[in-house]
């Protein structure tokens, strides 16, 4: 009447699955995504859909080539999340082939070459973004001043298609620079922050996202809300975001106090350049982050440190993707050395010393 093959416990399971987690991540990203689409109009929506669709198609193709069952792995939603995250880090009016190439790179090179779900060393979306940034610097740094849907001057549906498919050039009048880009340009012209920031940086506007930015990184507050939702649902843990953002805040505060002309404050660092997107949705990727709390704190702090260093002293105004990739490479090392302490053993794996001598037995007896 019942099954006869011995199965070991537990015979019950917590609710949730990989697909469930991916679904929540997608849901938590929706507000910021919707805001990005609203802010940058039809071309942004086209790019978003193209990138996600391409990611799903490349996933199916890779699974087929690898001879794995296609439907369960497609249904887990990981390809959708990868495509979505990649699209959110692209310039909103980027041409269609940027999205397709990025998705191909993320899914094939970033994921399936390593062995598919759970095997990849690097975050696929970040790997693809870095590859695109290095290969196509012009397309990847053409930022758009916000032109909300249906507002005067915003491209209509057909114009949007024309922009996405490269039939019309992006008019110069609508391009702008991100605040981090502006400050770096300013430094190269020996301008201090007090000269570059006015006009390009208003804290509230920056936090709300009404600024030139990539498709989905603009609204720091909506991303923060999504991240808090994931934490509340226990899809992600608190440790990496707290360590990363904390490190970023501490470093920027310290250097700002040293030289406010040269070093921007914590507000600008937190609310610009995808810091929130990375902290809650990229570095929390379970596959490419360490699996112990200690390891994750170290990993998050490393990401924060590298982001700050690249932004402040590096050649790129925007360092998040490079920082994440570098720390991803360290994850196996962190996991190897930072293991939790086992019950009844010291950190080095030796049995704990017997503490109270009066509690020890006069004669040792082993239970058989």
């Amino acid at each position, binding site marked *: 009447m019942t*099954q006869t093959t011995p199965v070991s416990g537990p015979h019950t399971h917590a609710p949730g699955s990989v697909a469930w987690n991916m679904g929540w991540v997608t849901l938590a990203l929706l507000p910021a995504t919707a805001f990005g689409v609203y802010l940058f109009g039809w071309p942004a929506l086209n790019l978003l859909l193209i990138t996600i669709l391409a990611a799903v198609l490349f996933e199916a193709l890779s699974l087929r080539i690898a001879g794995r069952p296609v439907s369960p792995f497609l249904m887990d939603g990981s390809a959708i999340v990868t495509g979505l995250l990649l699209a959110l880090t692209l310039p909103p009016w980027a041409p269609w082939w940027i999205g397709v190439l990025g998705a191909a790179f993320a899914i094939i090179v970033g994921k399936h070459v390593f062995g598919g779900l759970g095997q990849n060393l690097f975050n696929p979306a970040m790997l693809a973004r870095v590859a695109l940034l290095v290969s196509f610097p012009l397309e990847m740094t053409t930022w758009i001043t916000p032109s909300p849907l249906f507002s005067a001057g915003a491209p209509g549906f057909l114009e949007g298609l024309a922009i996405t498919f490269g039939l019309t050039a992006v008019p110069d009048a609508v391009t702008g620079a991100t605040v981090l880009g502006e400050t770096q340009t300013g430094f190269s012209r020996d301008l201090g922050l007090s000269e570059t920031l006015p006009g390009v940086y208003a804290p509230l506007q920056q936090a709300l996202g009404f600024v030139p930015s990539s498709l989905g990184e603009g609204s720091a507050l909506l991303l923060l809300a999504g991240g808090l939702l994931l934490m509340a649902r226990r899809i992600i843990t608190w440790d990496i975001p707290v360590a990363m953002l904390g490190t970023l805040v501490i470093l920027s505060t310290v250097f700002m106090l040293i030289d406010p002309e040269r070093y921007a404050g914590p507000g600008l660092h937190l609310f610009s350049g995808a810091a929130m997107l990375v902290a809650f949705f990229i570095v929390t990727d379970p596959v490419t982050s360490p699996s112990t709390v200690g390891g994750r704190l170290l990993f998050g702090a490393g990401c924060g440190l590298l982001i700050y260093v690249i932004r402040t002293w590096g050649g790129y105004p925007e360092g998040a993707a490079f920082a994440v990739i570098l720390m991803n490479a360290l994850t196996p090392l962190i996991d190897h050395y930072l293991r939790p302490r086992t019950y009844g053993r010291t950190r080095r794996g030796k049995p704990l010393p*017997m503490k109270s001598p009066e509690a020890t037995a006069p004669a040792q007896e082993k239970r058989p």
Partner: protein
Amino acid sequence: MFFFMRKRPAFKGGVHPDDRKQATSGLPIEPLPLPARLYLPVQQHIGAAARPVVTAGDTVLKGQMIARGDGAVSAAVHAPTSGRILAVEPHPAPHPSGLPVETIVIEPDGEDRRQEEPDPEHALNLEPEIIAQRVAEAGVVGMGGATFPAAIKLNLGSRHHIDTLIINGSECEPYLTCDDRLMRERTDEVVDGIRIIRHALGARRALVVVEDNKPEALAALQARLYEMDTIEAMAVPTRYPMGSEKHMIKAVTGREIPAGKLGADIGVIVHNVGTAYAVHRAVRMRRPLISRIVTVGGGAVQRPANLEVLLGTRVEDLLAHCGGTRQPPARLLMGGPMMGQVMPHAQVPIIKGSNGIIALTAEEINIGETMPCIRCGRCVAACPCGLMPLEMAARIRKEDMDGAVDYGLMDCVACGSCSYVCPSHIPLVQFFHHAKGVLGARREQQRRQEEIKRLAQQRRERQEAEARAKAEAAERRKAEREAAKRKADEAKAARAAKAAAAKETPKTPAADEAKA
């Protein structure tokens, strides 16, 4: 209040499964009617199987010993009711394999005649050895499911300094309510059993530990304990696996058992509330262990219940009493859903360690499709032993058992917290059981090889000794032969000299012979 109670008692890790105890926690214990047959395996405990002392055709009285404990670690089995022994034969055991074990089959006569039993007596005057002896005679084992013979743990007071006795009333497995009901309905008996155990161990204090999802049981216990009593009932947070000995000790005393040691080594002994009740029955009432309380539950059962069941009653009798099953259960378990075992069918008997019969529906099990590990680390956070289940499983998958041992496989208590939380539904515990099995087989093989090597070595040494002895003997013989030859030569030379001296004498046959 003890100093360690300032902090909220806790251990690292663990999970919080839905306890699903509501179905039976409000139901009083009801006796199960006498079944038509009782099947009593001689192996209901950890250790050596008991030896049957009855044969087919014998009549037995209630409480009569029918199998005697064999050796130091074993437990006797008693007749749960009066009747006739039908057979002593192999019968499927309550184990996932369903393999048969030696079983004594009793046909009850319905009269329930008991042996002459002595009157209750004051147990707290007794010597610890006498208490342990009575508990051993009554066949009492750990009633929480571990089934380690209780008498051995009662004797530890003489060898170890035990300062704390912990009575485990946590009942951290979902569905099970048998200990809850026992604490509520038979509080005095449980408390008396605790006093007896504490006395036997010479422990300074005793703590009854109850998870905070059983406030009624806690209140019932606290109402029975005196203000100045050395027994204290304490609530702990509901968190699986609170009932694990290691983790309960850590949670309530803050002490950690060093790897490879026992609770007794750090002055703590843990007994289950059911064991305390059985000790009360055995020592105070002189009654052997012949019944236990079993929770029948799970979504597939028509009418969940807490039953007092004679040992040897078949699972199908319990299910029939509970109105049968609503639907064929997806899994029929003995014990709770976290660490319980799948029963091959319902024709297996209830034994001393059976705390629950849980018939689960597929929805309750929530079997998901196994996906690749996404390294989320939830198993690491859930592991109460501080291990990294994902790393262990990854190594076992590659048959790298030594790598898994390096990651702490042998410190795993198989509580199942990791499998429970895994979003990829990877059967981690199954991996660990598999690896432990392989390692056990490997150790056995190694032991055999060493034995063979030892025997071969002995044989070689023996042969060498023989050869040496032979060579020496040969040497000796040769020496003797040579000595004899020398003697003969000398004799010949002497004779030759003699012959030369008598050259002129004519040839004699004797001289011819000497020449030859």
